[in-house]
């Protein structure tokens, strides 16, 4: 009896998950369908770029700096064993541009901007602002959701680039200024080894994918949240958890596709 009940529970959760994925996909389609209005009135996107992008700057800059400093320290300790300290710049730059920049920036973006988007839209629903908009013959997907989606998609690669730049600066500060690695080899080896198309653009592509996925999850969870305090809080938690898992899973798939055989 317990086994049947457990199986029934698993089945129910699976069906629910498939339903939600289907609903989220349909929601994504609706956003794309209603995006024309956002681009015709670009000031709506700019307003959202401020709250998703600009307001995330501090956390991205500070986190990027410290991650780069840690990379500089750890990298120096490892490379020193093989007498390759001069390759510190390459290690820091490749680690950040290919991997840590897009992934950590996306995780921070999901926690800072994604959760805020979910809470904001969930509360708009709970306080009947979304219903009011519908009653005013204004489509909430076009007016509220689409501008936020494009703001998320645009700001994520920029934030990831900023994270990587700050990380490289942090690595330089620890490696060159504090430890004394040769400055010329730090920069020249980095310049020689980091390929713009293969490394930088693939990192940008990753952050674009992460930005799209995180923003869709955040907006869907907010729009789908039950209009209660508990519903909004649950949706916000789901945004952070689901986004983080999606980022890490997609990172593996994208890394395997981009760098797997090289």
């Amino acid at each position, binding site marked *: 009896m317990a086994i049947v009940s457990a199986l029934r529970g698993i089945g129910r959760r699976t069906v629910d998950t498939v339903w939600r994925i289907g609903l989220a996909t349909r929601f994504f389609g609706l956003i794309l369908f209603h995006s024309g209005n956002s681009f015709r009135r670009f000031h709506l996107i700019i307003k959202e770029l401020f709250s998703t992008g600009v307001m995330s700057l501090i956390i991205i800059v500070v986190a990027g700096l410290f991650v780069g400093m840690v990379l500089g320290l750890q990298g120096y300790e490892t490379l020193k064993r093989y007498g390759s300290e001069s390759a510190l710049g390459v290690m820091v730059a490749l680690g950040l541009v290919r991997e840590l920049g897009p992934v950590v920036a996306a995780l921070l973006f999901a926690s800072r901007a994604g959760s805020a988007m979910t809470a*904001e839209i969930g*509360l*708009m629903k709970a*306080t*009947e*602002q979304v*219903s*009011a*908009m*519908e*009653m*005013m*013959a*204004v*489509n909430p997907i076009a*007016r509220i959701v689409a501008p936020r989606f494009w703001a998320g998609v645009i700001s994520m690669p920029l934030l990831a680039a900023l994270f990587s730049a700050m990380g490289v600066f942090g690595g330089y500060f620890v490696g060159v200024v504090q430890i004394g690695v040769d400055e010329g080899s730090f920069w020249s080896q980095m310049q020689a080894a980091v390929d713009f198309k293969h490394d930088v653009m693939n990192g940008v592509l990753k952050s674009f994918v992460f930005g799209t996925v995180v923003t869709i999850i955040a907006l869907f969870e907010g729009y789908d949240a039950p209009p209660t305090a508990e519903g909004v809080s649950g949706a916000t938690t789901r945004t952070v958890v689901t986004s983080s898992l999606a980022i890490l899973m997609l990172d593996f798939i994208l890394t395997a596709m981009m760098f797997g055989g090289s």
Partner: protein
Amino acid sequence: MTFPKGKLIAIMGLSGCGKTTLLRHIGGALTPTKGYVKVDGQIIHELDQAGLYAMRRKMGMLFQFGALFTDMSVYDNVAFQMREHTDLPEELIHDLVLMKLHAVGLRGTHNLMPSELSGGMARRVALARTVALDPMLIMYDEPFAGLDPISLTVVGDLIRRLNDALGATSVVVTHDVQESLKIVDYVYFMANGVIVEEGTPDEIRNSQKDWVRQFVHGEIEGPVPFHYPGGDYRQDLNLKVKS
């Protein structure tokens, strides 16, 4: 139910009797399983999305707690529909917004955010937003809920005056018997999803129907029981009857 042009109609009844559901049907947010709602000669549930949105532009709805957009100022809230649905120049929108706010006595609040308003003020700003495009049908969902006596009278008076000034038809869903009977032309009284009484305010006040009398006079005894149906009380308290 019929709502004639220019009239202010109240729909009253206990919580859960279907009043707000009725408003949602009029606004096309719900599809009826039986019957229909006809507004301006068109059956609402037969309209496609474009038709429904065109119809909603002729309607205004005041939500229970105003539902002002919290990320916009009072000015932007009132200007919202004008910017969304018209090509009016910003100078004209400015004048119209201030006129609408003046009509509800809150011209001086145009720079404030909704969080800086009291409950009564928020309701009046929402009222200004509701009539921003001079709708032919205005719906009010519990407009008096949670208001102090002064705000309550002010909002009631505004609903009456705006309806007359705009030549609109207004439907007020409310629990507030005394305030609404002062301002409305006709009342429908609902219970369990059906109309149990209708008439002018005087007819409702003098109605001998149990439901209406209990509701209008706020009596404890009547067809609406105090206790929610439950099992045997003694059994719930684990008491044994002495033989």
